[in-house]
């Protein structure tokens, strides 16, 4: 009896679900298109908040002068020269990429070409868990653990600086670089490897004479996504970089690694609370947001096109 009853209910409810097909299809279509809506909305609202000041910004000052004084002393004019802040983001991106790229590529090659069986599976899982560690934890590690280590090691007053922030960002970018470049290496057909091995190449020769050239677009995309991650990273950069805009005279001097920097993301995060809705400072933070948004979206879309191109070529 009971079984008959439940199956009857099931039949009725499934008939109802079938009848709702046009409605459900509508909902599915709208949800599908919603991503476009959200992207448009993000651009719209960021521009909307910054709009009143966009025509008044002195872009020459913004890009080329290092004078960010949003709250000047009584009687002085506020300055919004963001060169120092742009330099901070640029420096962290360059240094962290220099750390993350070789390590990421090497780990990807090891996992994809040398490791086998249990070792391979374990490494992959560990890299995946590494990717899950949130940026606030990296910021905390930079501030509380790495900071004192750098202080002692280099005998400097403050341990939060360019080096510290770049290390933290590198560790955040590496799992991404590893997984994308591993995909790129795996997409190279086995016949390439077999041909090289048959000609007497060692495994390492296969990697750098066959796989690297064949997978170079994918590896490039991996590096670019790492760069995008570094540019957009907020909490780790905020807590580990020191937060002082600083443009060094000589960028090739390694001592600049130990200087404090201030990145675009950290500027927005730290200064928003000092602003009132609609004042100049508030709108200038949204202007920085616009610059960030453009850099990151362009980087992501280009590397995605490269990755998709690879998939198409090999399928």
């Amino acid at each position, binding site marked *: 009896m009971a079984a008959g009853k439940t199956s009857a209910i099931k039949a009725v409810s499934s008939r109802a679900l079938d009848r709702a097909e046009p409605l459900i*299809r509508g909902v*599915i279509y709208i*949800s599908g298109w919603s991503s476009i809506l959200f992207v448009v909305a993000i651009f719209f*609202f*960021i521009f909307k908040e910054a709009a009143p000041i966009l025509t008044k910004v002195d872009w020459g000052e913004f890009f080329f002068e290092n004078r960010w004084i949003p709250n000047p002393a009584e009687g002085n004019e506020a300055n919004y020269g963001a060169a120092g802040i742009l330099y901070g983001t640029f420096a962290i991106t360059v240094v962290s990429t220099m750390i993350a790229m070789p390590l990421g590529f090497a780990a990807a090659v090891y996992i994809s070409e040398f490791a086998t069986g249990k070792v391979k599976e374990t490494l992959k899982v560990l*890299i995946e868990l590494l990717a*899950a560690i949130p940026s606030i*934890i990296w910021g905390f590690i930079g501030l509380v653990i790495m900071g004192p280590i750098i202080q002692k090691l280099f005998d400097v007053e403050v341990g939060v600086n360019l080096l510290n922030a770049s290390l933290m960002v590198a560790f955040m970018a590496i799992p991404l670089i590893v997984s994308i470049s591993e995909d790129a290496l795996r997409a190279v057909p086995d016949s390439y490897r077999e041909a090289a091995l048959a000609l007497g190449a*060692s495994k390492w020769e296969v990697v750098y004479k066959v796989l690297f050239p064949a997978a170079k677009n994918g590896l490039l995309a991996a590096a670019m996504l790492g760069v995008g991650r570094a540019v957009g990273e907020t909490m780790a950069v905020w807590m580990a970089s020191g937060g002082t805009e600083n443009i060094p005279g000589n960028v090739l001097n390694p001592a600049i690694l130990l200087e404090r920097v201030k990145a675009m993301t950290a500027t927005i995060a730290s200064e928003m609370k000092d602003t009132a809705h609609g004042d100049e400072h508030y709108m200038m933070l949204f202007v920085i947001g616009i610059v960030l948004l453009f850099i990151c*979206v362009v980087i992501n879309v280009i590397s995605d096109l490269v990755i998709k191109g690879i998939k198409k070529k090999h399928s």
Partner: protein
Amino acid sequence: MDSELHPFSASVFEQRKLFKEKLARSLMLTAALMLIVPVISIIIYLFVKASPVLSISYIVDDPGPLGKSGGIWLPLMGTFYLVLTSLVIVAPIGILAGIYLNEYAPDNWLTRAIGMAVTSLAGVPSIVHALFGVGAFVLTLGLGKSLLAAACTIAVMTIPVIVTATREALAAVPMQFREACWNMGATKWQTIRTIVLPNSVSGILTGVILEVSRAAGETAPILFTGAAASVAVSTATLDRKLVPYDLDDKFMALSYHLHIVAEKISGMPEEMMFGCAAVLIALILTVNSVSIGLRGWLRSRKKW
């Protein structure tokens, strides 16, 4: 060399090649270990430092003044309800969008534009999502700085996670399943409901779990949209203890609490911040391990 005595032993040239191979191999293994060993030791260090406070009472007590004493109940609940609310918003949209992209979308410019939009959403920096949240949810929709505004911001940010996972899960269901069902006279929706979804539900679930982990760890998007360093909530009664926040309240969150206790307050007892970090990281690693385990179990059970 005695290579002339043993005609099959490696020549000098081959020996050099083998040496290079070994060198490259060990260098790359070192690189892989350099990623993993420091991180594991740091995490162990975190837990050792946190061990003096880690106890049941640390979890269930409210934070004391400035977070210097007491526990982390209010931030923990804040994170829980933030994740839950964002999930309620993003799961239907994300799953349906994944269904659209894999089952309905024709191969045309619009579909490519949607794909590009999903990629762009994933690429937008979290702090820009926070600015969007301020403009759209806090101000324009008039939600104010609240749990709901923060959850909406997190939801928009995590759409790509669920869309991508759903799409992959659906794509893994073989085309023959659908064709067999259509041949029986089933409509597209009937096929999706009775054949495609049941065969991909665990893959979709993995995506949902990943969203939970992302939402629980994020700090930047909730900075200006509703997170508070402290809240005036009385948790005297049991129902206020279990549901300390309304949707339009400001709330505390574990990630933001960690930022405050680590950076903003001087004279913070060390174990208080390590405790908070340890709980957050334990939470996130557990959630992710569940997702990885589920995926492995799924692969082992796959029938096709």
